[in-house]
């Protein structure tokens, strides 16, 4: 027996986010202002971003004296394709524009490019490196 009933999502919950694949692809990824980037000689990009800890973990780290500038930031080195994609994130291009670009540049099948691109953006979003802006015409900014 469940102790608490799971709340059923109302229609309003969904009205704010994309409801179909084409709508999701119209969202525009935006870089986080807290991310600093460094370009290597190879052309690859290294991103440095702040590590977000849960409050209880943060207080524990402080008590144990583990809190320092170094432990509060992380680095992520992107490969060539990732670096190229990162350089295209200007807040104006939608996800489908990025997919089109990658399709043309690497002669990829559209579906493959879409899966690779959405997976990459999802990963960046989970780390808090990007947010998503709703397509023009829709209000508000959606972050991952």
């Amino acid at each position, binding site marked *: 027996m469940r102790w608490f009933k799971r709340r059923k999502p109302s229609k309003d919950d969904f009205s704010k986010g994309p409801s179909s694949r084409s709508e999701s692809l119209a969202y525009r990824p935006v870089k986080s202002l807290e991310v600093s980037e460094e370009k290597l000689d190879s052309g690859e990009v290294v991103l440095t971003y702040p590590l977000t800890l849960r409050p209880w973990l943060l207080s524990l780290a402080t008590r144990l004296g583990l809190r320092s500038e170094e432990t509060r930031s992380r680095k992520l080195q992107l490969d060539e394709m990732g670096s190229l994609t990162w350089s295209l994130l200007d807040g104006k291009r939608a996800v489908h524009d990025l997919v089109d670009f990658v399709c043309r540049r690497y002669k990829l099948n559209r579906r493959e490019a879409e899966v690779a691109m959405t*997976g990459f953006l999802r990963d960046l979003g989970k780390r808090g490196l990007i947010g998503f802006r709703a397509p023009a015409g829709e209000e508000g900014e959606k972050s991952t």
Partner: protein
Amino acid sequence: MDSGKSELWKTVAWNGLSLRVPPQWEVSSLATSYLRLDDEVGPVLELKWQQIRGLFSFKTHLEKLSRLSTSTPGVDFQEIPLPHDWQQALRNFEVQSFVWQSTEVSGKGAILYCSECQKAILLQFYQKQRRGDSRIPLGILHSFRDHSEDGMVHWALFGLRALIPQRFTLVRHRFHPGHYQLEFQHQKEHLHLNRWGPADLVLKDGDLLAWFHKRCGELNWCHAANMREYNYDGKPALQGQSQGSIAAASRLWARMTRKLPYIWVRIWHLASRNHILGVAAGGLKPLNEQMLEEVCSNYEMV
């Protein structure tokens, strides 16, 4: 929905089934005997099939579908006589058609049974209120095939095309960005089709041979093949093979250790499509090289 000209439609062929669909339709979900295609908005076509041993009962399967729909609130399921325009397209099958309706989406489909290959297929088209072009389902049904006539099975998906002898069955597949792999097996004979890409990224640190030595772990037993540079149809390629001993003891040892004594591998760089294609075969008995040449010549990216 704009279906475009049917000449622009593309072929989707998977595990014995083949059909032509509008160019904007993409496979969104895939299993050994299951296909779902989506357009820009959502699901549009779903196919599920099964090899039948013994007698096939439409009644049982329709009852299952009906039960499934009644357990889902708001779905109304109904058997209907086969639509007149579908009759000609599905003349080679025994057919029972149905429709279902929920608040937002409706479906129209059929259970097909092919007495020639004993395959039962559940096929359904999803329709939203505003999408009702009946020519698309009809065009798809006219192109629908559930078995091959010449003993070669056609595979066409995500730009990959191949023709594989019918005796091979699909045992594993993966379509990861950068690496596609189809693994077939017939008794102790294995056949793998691979596709890596984008080639300009994959080969940026060296040539095909250097890359192969770095990545051959992915090809499992292929490291045993003695790979050499080769020119395949004007394309840079690698080819290698290993031949086991014909002694009965060696064959028994290979069987016990699950090592394949006969291995044949060919990998070529398809610069025009920016991909690397690979065919690998292994077995306990000598391999049919003519068949492998045929597989390679029909394996392409479009």
